[in-house]
């Protein structure tokens, strides 16, 4: 199955120089577990900050989320894949890099994200369909 059919188009962005507290607020408000960090300039690349980064790199170390910038804890570049790729590639990337979400790009733009849960849910649906078309 093509990635395009599985991916979620709901992506939230945050500026690289925003503080971690802003990221926390955004994640809580939107009920999401990661934010795409915008490039600072044309030479820069997209990054990603996850709940995991915030908990382990900031809150777990008793650091002040209001004083730390998102770019300090973000991972970059993001692991991304072309929209025409098959889901098997996503699974192998997740396995290889031990990550739970892979972004989907079209040219230089990020257009979606596929999470481990999306892969599992769609695999189960395909299994339930059993190759049949109702």
């Amino acid at each position, binding site marked *: 199955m093509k990635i395009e059919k599985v991916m979620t188009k*709901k992506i939230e962005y945050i500026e690289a120089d925003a503080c971690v507290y802003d990221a926390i607020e955004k994640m809580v408000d939107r*009920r999401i577990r990661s934010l795409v960090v915008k490039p600072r300039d044309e030479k820069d690349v997209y990054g990603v900050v996850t709940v995991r980064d915030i908990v382990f790199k900031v809150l777990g170390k008793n650091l002040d989320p209001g004083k730390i910038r998102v770019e300090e804890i973000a991972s970059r570049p993001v692991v991304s894949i072309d929209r025409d790729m098959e889901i098997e590639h996503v699974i192998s990337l997740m396995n290889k890099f031990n990550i739970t979400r892979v972004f989907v790009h079209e040219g230089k733009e990020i257009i979606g994200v596929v999470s481990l849960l999306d892969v599992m*849910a769609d695999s*189960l*649906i395909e*299994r*339930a*369909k*059993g190759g*049949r*078309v*109702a």
Partner: protein
Amino acid sequence: MLEKVFFGGKTEQKVIENIKRHIKILCSASDCFKKAIEERNKDLMFCVPDLEREGDSIRREIVSNIYEGAFLPFLRSNICRFVEIVDEAFDVLEDAAYEFEYLGSKLDEEIEDDCIKIADINLKMCEMLLIAFETLFSKEDLREKNLAIRIYEKKVDEIKFDLIEKLREKEVKSFWEGKILSDFISYLTRVSDVIEDASDYLYIMNVSLR
């Protein structure tokens, strides 16, 4: 042998075929509903009440056949209840179709995208319900189909929460405009709940037959 005892008779087969037809018509109504929203064409929406009426007449036929003596008595009420839940899905879809006719082209693009996504998932859920019903008479695992329907329902729930947040930020110009939009979203998102109920009931029927 068990399948023959429970479902093998002529009247039983007639009921089973009619239930399949009933669900297939629900799929057609959901497909029609989706196309009408995609094309912003409220005239296309007229097929939904038409198909609902067709569904109604099939439901009456199914219930009559059952009370004429199809199936063992302990199965009859369960089958009737399942058919009634599917019929409820028709009713909710029809209510959503009527509200859409009043809405016309007043649906914001941002809201429209989410509504199309929900309509698409509703259609996929109907198709999966048909597969699940057919599974009742095969050796396949109904549990997987039931899980797939629950996954679809969770997806609708997620979109619904986003949609409600967007609606809260929207300026309402009149009471009726707000009410119609709110009712439309409520009916649209309720279809998946009803299909999930039908799937759960199917699962209970399956367990009771073991």
